């Protein structure tokens, strides 16, 4: 760290239709530092980075590179200045090899491809940072962690001076995250300055400097060693909040007879890999069973099997002793099983439909909602208005398309529908992903409420802290296997992290 400003924004402003994403941002990246952008979802961190990368063009303000004003009209310009970016959702081609992914779009002079020269160049980079990758394997065959390396190599291959990483640890196990931070600091020593986005307080403390963002504004830039997690969080929220402390969990329930029993579930995905590898779990009424693990380790396939959307290759799913695996989603829903899918806009909502239409999705043929051949508009509207009130959905009316709602309110629509139509089991896959703290709190409270009413809840999340707070038991999933099941009362993030990293535990 030289203290020299390398990249700087002055009063940078970016609007999207109906949203102010960035407003008057003055941000400074110094040479050789690891700089964290810290803030809630929707605070404008990704937008700022996209502006710095030239992917978005700011509506106002300016960007300076080494004191000179620059205009990034497209990523080509920023790449020319040595800026690289790793996007939160990887931008990789599954069907390409690692090598093809890295070199595509980098050579704009020659017609032919010189694969060998590129490969040699990459080998040197990998050796330097201790990255181990086979350049000829297809990206779709790599683990999520390895795909992250490919993304980073794409930038290193272009010899960047500044690397921007958008939530790089979101998809990594704690162990992989540690490795990433080591490499990030090594890059810093090699003269590469780094900006990374995070909303995890523990990672923020590993940065050289932190800029806190909230509601599109940059609140302050501070040194982590001169502050505390509590102070930073207050800055982010803009008011005094208590960091969540572990509550005493005294939930008691009967573990003699599971309502849902999963035995030796196996499923091979289309690439021939076991997405579910011999999964066995019991779910009891009145409990919240957490499913801890990085996304993409079989959660999706498990939830799809449990909601009738995927037929496992072998194994059984028993509901009160009756086998139901491979039946249709209709059967599962009629048994009183509700589902909050992880991809809410793809699997849970019809965005172009209004709220009331979404409230009856899947139940449109229910007698309550029909009158002869026709839909009973009055009943549907009444229900929708009831639920809007009950679930505190912010909307002018029940006829607003769901696509006009914020992510939190859209999630509440799903929650309202599923809780209104199920009465036994709630399956929730990453229900708080991408939501504000306020909504997260709300979702968790609803889940707890239902647990107390006697629901059995299966809750998958990447937020280990939340799971420990909320759940009665936690199962750890990795590579399609259950690596262990622990009592939430007597475990810690470190324990779970070790299990996720693949160390099996025998005393469950």
């Amino acid at each position: 760290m030289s203290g020299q400003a390398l990249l700087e924004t002055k009063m940078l402003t970016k609007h999207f239709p109906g949203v102010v994403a960035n407003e008057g941002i003055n941000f400074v990246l110094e040479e050789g530092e690891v700089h964290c952008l810290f803030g809630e979802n929707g605070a404008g961190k990704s937008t700022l980075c996209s502006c710095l990368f030239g992917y978005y063009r700011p509506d106002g303000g300016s960007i300076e590179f080494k004191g000179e004003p620059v205009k990034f009209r497209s990523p080509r310009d920023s790449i020319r200045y040595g800026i690289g970016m790793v996007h939160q959702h990887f931008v990789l081609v599954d069907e390409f090899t690692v090598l093809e992914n890295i070199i595509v779009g980098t050579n704009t002079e020659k017609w032919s491809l010189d694969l060998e020269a590129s490969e040699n160049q990459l080998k040197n980079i990998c050796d330097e940072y201790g990255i181990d990758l086979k350049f000829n394997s297809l990206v779709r065959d790599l683990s999520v962690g390895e795909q992250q390396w490919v993304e980073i190599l794409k930038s290193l291959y272009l010899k960047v001076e500044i690397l921007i990483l958008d939530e790089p640890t979101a998809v990594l196990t704690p162990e992989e995250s540690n490795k990433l931070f080591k490499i990030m600091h090594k890059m810093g020593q090699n003269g590469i300055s780094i900006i990374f986005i995070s909303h995890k307080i523990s990672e923020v403390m590993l940065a050289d400097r932190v800029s806190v963002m909230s509601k599109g504004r940059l609140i302050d830039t501070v040194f982590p060693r001169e502050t505390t997690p509590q102070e930073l969080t207050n800055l982010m929220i803009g008011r005094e909040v208590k960091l969540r402390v572990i509550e005493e969990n005294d939930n008691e329930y009967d573990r003699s007879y599971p309502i849902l029993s999963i035995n030796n579930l196996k499923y091979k995905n289309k690439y021939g890999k076991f997405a579910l590898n011999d999964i066995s779990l019991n779910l009891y009424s009145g409990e919240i069973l957490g499913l801890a693990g990085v996304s993409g380790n079989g959660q999706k396939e498990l939830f799809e099997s449990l909601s009738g959307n995927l037929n496992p290759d072998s194994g059984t799913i028993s509901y009160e002793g009756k086998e139901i695996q491979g039946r249709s989603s209709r059967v599962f829903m009629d048994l009183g099983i509700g589902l909050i899918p992880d991809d809410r806009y793809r699997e849970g909502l019809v965005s172009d439909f209004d709220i009331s239409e979404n409230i009856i999705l899947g139940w449109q043929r229910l007698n309550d909602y029909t009158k002869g051949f026709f839909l009973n508009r009055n009943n549907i509207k009444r229900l929708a208005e009831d639920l809007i009130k009950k679930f505190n959905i912010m909307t002018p009316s029940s006829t607003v398309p769901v696509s006009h709602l914020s992510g939190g309110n859209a999630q509440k629509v799903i929650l309202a529908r599923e809780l209104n139509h199920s009465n036994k089991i709630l399956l929730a896959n990453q229900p708080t992903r991408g939501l504000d703290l306020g909504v997260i709190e709300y979702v968790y409270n609803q889940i707890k409420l239902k647990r107390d009413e006697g629901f059995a809840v299966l809750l998958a999340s990447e937020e280990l802290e939340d799971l420990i707070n909320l759940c009665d038991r936690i199962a750890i999933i990795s590579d399609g296997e259950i690596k262990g099941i622990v009592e939430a009362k007597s475990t810690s993030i470190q324990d779970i992290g070790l299990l996720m990293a693949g160390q099996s535990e025998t005393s469950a």
Partner: protein
Amino acid sequence: MSELFQEAVIISILAGTLRIMTPILFAAIGELVTQRAGIWNMGVEGTMIMGAFVSYVVATQSDSLPLAILSGILSGMVMGLIIGFMTSTLRVDHFITGLGLNLLVGGLTFFWFRIYVKGGHPPTFTGLENFSIPILASIPILGEVFFNQKPLTYIAILSVPVVSYFLYRTRWGLEIRCLGENPKAIDIKGLSVALRQYIAIIIGSGMTGLGGAFLMLGFSDRFQPDLTAGKGWLAIVAIIAGKWLPKGVFAAVLVFAFLESVAVHVQIIDADIPYQIFFALPYLASIILLILLRRKTNQPARLGVPYFR
């Protein structure tokens, strides 16, 4: 039926296969480039008929076949521009765009044709000549089948390895394939998705136009509105059946061409069996082929999905 198995007839069927293959192969290989760039162009049929019509007009006006072929290619490229504008720039649904173009061009060429002939007899032209490759053409059977064809047939076959090289061994090919799988990977490098898609469509539609020109100049001496009779659609089926790989597409086109060649010969030889059955065969075969090959498609992930930032 037994006449079908005489040596001369078999040779004629096989030679006919290569001739019928030519226009479909041009269209299919061209459309393969387009589809690899993520554009599901359903306007192949229309592009082909436009290429055929324009080359007809030029051939009858100028008496120059090279000029006619060239204008067929150019008219195909113009069709490609329209498709590109609709799908890549305006992001209209790819299927609808292609259907709309087919309907428009079907009507337009018919309309112009009527205007052109002014109620009289359609003017005719002298079509493409066969070209015998010296020595090789005199090999018995094989010579007649393979080495006594029109030059464009050789070029069509040659286009398979050339396009294959282009797609897999050049940076443009790599970028075009990337568009079909994940256009954002191009976009975030600051490279124009639209420009590359336009290039792919124009290459593809130019080749389709060339196919149309061959259909006109290689088979007939005057234009008919239903000249293409679904050959553009067969080209699309060949791509799906060939799993989006140049070699596979080539094989599928050969199957269709062979069936149609048989149908043509049956119609000439045998009047007992309704000829319509044989003409329906390639279409029936295409459905069966798609049923049989349904496992493991290799379809580009973002084919037909408009790209929004």
